[in-house]
């Protein structure tokens, strides 16, 4: 996003284009122009331009290094986890080799169980059997303890035949599903986290299938996140546009005063603002008390305005409103009022003048505001967590859960990657429809 927005980049490419053209074209008189010290002018120009570019690059270098080290590399590593999880393949090499040699659908024979027993013993010794169990538990819930408990038993010693010995420790080792899960995890690179993030899994035949209906949650949450973000973007536009217009057209002194009112909540802690909404909107809250006092609703008919989707929408719209108002305002300030006056004097109705003359000029600010609000809304989770109730959970809450509670970072990374891809697609669409050059971030 930085490059197309960077005005300097545009100037440099532009200048470079001109330079190339100038060099290619011979002088009209056929005489070579030179500088005062006798250098050919074109070459001197090129050299000074190159120096300027180098200086510019050196100036940008610290930022570039900073962004690379603190942003691109860690995020790249995190995203890599979504497709790579060597938890099983690293710690269970012999079983993984058996899976390589035997095609999908092969019934695990004594060699497979022997490999399993050997790997388990080694993993228990190295205290990595928990990693293996956790990896398989992602594929088939409920199996982690099977690995840790069997690991403990195998470490005490196991005699052939391994199949009978393992089945005696736990009959679940004969489970076909378990072997499918182990096969799916036997390569370090895997698509299973992306499949899981789309409510899909791989069945024993290796085909992609849907997970049981009562666990299909991620696709629904993606849809809800996108829908709510779009709705909130629309609401901030409807509410913010008149405010920005008022701010831009009032005399400076009064508009500054109003501006403070816009900025004050912007500077207030997010948690404070969210909690303030709870105080206002809850059933024993200020708004309901006022309505009851006015006699508009009865004591029994207090409205449920928070701990549901309504609460999420209200609180998030309020919190994100400044991100819409500020870019709109900065663009509106620069719009010359004489255009609208000219349109009016030429016979346009006020609506037509607004629609054809004023509104199109605000598009760069609107675009920037909409993009900001939308992208922030997509990743929001504190507010939905506090006021969302049962219907306000968003996809970012699940990412946070997998990061901090289940510690399934591969799953968190897969969800985050899908979210990122979705935002990028929307960004691309946006660029197609509105044009990213038309963006003014303030």
């Amino acid at each position, binding site marked *: 996003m930085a490059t197309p927005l960077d005005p300097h980049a545009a100037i440099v490419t532009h200048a470079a284009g001109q330079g190339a053209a100038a060099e290619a074209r011979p002088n009209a008189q056929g005489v070579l122009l030179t500088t005062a010290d006798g250098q050919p002018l074109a070459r001197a120009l090129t050299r000074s331009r190159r120096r300027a570019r180098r200086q510019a690059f050196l100036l940008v270098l610290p930022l570039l290094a900073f962004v690379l080290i603190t942003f691109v590399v860690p995020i790249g590593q995190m995203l890599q986890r979504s497709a790579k999880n060597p938890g099983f393949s690293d710690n269970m090499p012999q079983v993984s080799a058996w899976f390589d040699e035997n095609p999908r659908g092969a019934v695990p024979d004594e060699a497979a169980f022997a490999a399993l027993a050997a790997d388990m013993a080694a993993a228990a010794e*190295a*205290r*990595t*059997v*928990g*990693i293996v*169990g*956790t990896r398989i*538990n*992602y594929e088939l*819930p*409920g*199996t*982690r*303890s099977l690995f*840790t408990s069997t690991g403990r038993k195998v470490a005490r010693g196991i005699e052939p035949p391994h199949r009978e010995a393992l089945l005696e420790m736990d009959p679940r080792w004969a489970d076909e599903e378990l072997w499918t899960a182990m096969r799916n995890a036997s390569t370090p690179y895997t698509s299973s986290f992306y499949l899981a993030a789309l409510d899909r899994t791989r069945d024993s035949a290796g085909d992609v299938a849907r997970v049981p209906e*009562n*666990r*299909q*949650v991620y696709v*629904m*949450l993606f849809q*809800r996140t996108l829908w709510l973000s779009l709705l909130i973007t629309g609401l901030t536009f409807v509410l913010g546009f008149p405010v920005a217009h008022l701010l831009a057209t009032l005399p400076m002194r009064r508009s500054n005063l109003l501006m403070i009112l816009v900025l004050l909540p912007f500077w207030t802690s997010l*948690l404070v603002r969210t909690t303030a909404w709870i105080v206002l909107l*809850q*059933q*024993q*809250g200020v708004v309901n008390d006022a309505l009851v006092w006015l006699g508009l609703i009865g004591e029994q008919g207090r409205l449920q305005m928070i*701990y549901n989707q309504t609460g999420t929408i209200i609180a998030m719209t309020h919190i994100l409103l400044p991100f819409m108002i500020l870019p709109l305002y900065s663009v509106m300030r620069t719009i010359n009022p004489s255009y609208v006056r000219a349109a009016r004097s030429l016979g346009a109705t006020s609506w037509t003048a607004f629609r054809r003359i004023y509104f199109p000029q605000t598009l760069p600010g609107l675009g920037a505001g909409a993009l900001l609000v939308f992208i922030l809304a997509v990743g929001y*989770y*504190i507010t939905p*967590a*506090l006021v969302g*109730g*049962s*219907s306000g*959970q968003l996809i970012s809450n*699940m990412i*946070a*859960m*997998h*990061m*901090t*509670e*289940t*510690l*399934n*970072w591969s*799953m968190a990374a897969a969800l985050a990657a899908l979210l990122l891809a979705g935002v990028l697609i929307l960004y691309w669409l946006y660029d197609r429809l509105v044009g990213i050059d038309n963006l003014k971030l303030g």
Partner: protein
Amino acid sequence: MNLPRRCLFALSAALVLSVPGWAAADERPLTVLTWGGDFTRAQQVAYATPFTEATGYPVRLVDVDSPTALIKAQVASGNVTADLASVGQADADRLCAEGLAEPIDPAILAPGADGTPAAQDFLPGGLDDCFVATDVYSTVIGYDATRVGAHRPDKLADFFDLDAFPGRRGVLKEPRFTLEMALMGDGVPPDRVYAELSTPQGLDRAFARLDSIRDQIVWWEAGAQPVQLLADGEVAMTMAYNGRLFAARFDEGRPFAILWDGQVYEIEGWMIPRGAPDVSAALEFVAFSTAPRPLARAAEQLSYGPPRVSAQALVGRYKDGVTELAPHLPTAPENLRSALAVDAGFWTDHDAELTERFTTWLAGD
């Protein structure tokens, strides 16, 4: 206890990462990750200050919201700055099994006040390969005694009885604790809860119980929320952490009461991240802080139960100097009668699966 939890995760990560920078200038203190708020204050008073006085070794308590994720990140990156962390038993079990924790030999622990070896003095589940318990916190039902009317709720089933006790209910928006309570509220005895939850029918039964009060539920996530909901009159009864309800009653004088029937308790304690900078000092601190007297001292600050039988008898008065704490602890014998201990193994196996199902159920409005 897990008040700001996720939202402050990034901040706490930054805090912890910044520790070695300035600590290197002086003698490096023992860095202990803990949960913040009253919890940290209690540990400061009961463990850290006496430890420094006894050994001269400085201790630094650092508040974090998700010690497990932080430890996983630190061990994975090979840059461990924490010497010790306070975690739940389930998390300790998981970190231990994944090789992210140092083993702790129970032989280093102090014997009980009456000379019982530590291994017999701790509650079941209080000692593990990499874990030594420090406290027992509990999820209970809290209600406002001035609002429930003439007869008070006296069993967990009353929480699900909207006819006898009308009014909305505060429920934790997580499957853990919630599903257990739903089953016990449906008449499942505590010792059968996890067997039941392991079957599809049992799960359906738990969700059906929640369905029966569904339109009256106000969901909460952070530990401070339910107490606020009760104080605002938003709910008639709520699930809550016992320490929060206790503090609201004795520090702020709120008329809250606790229904101990069907309480679900979890043991918390110390684990040492693998590759911690000073393992021997960490072990020394573990042994020092889990002796009966410091444990009792901590319980006096916070009303979380001491996990040792012999420490239970040493607990005196709350810091207000009046309240006898013993009957307010989750580990008091009369409170333990119908209590359920969280099954750490069950939740490491089923956490993700049940959270997915729970979220799907939540969304099915």
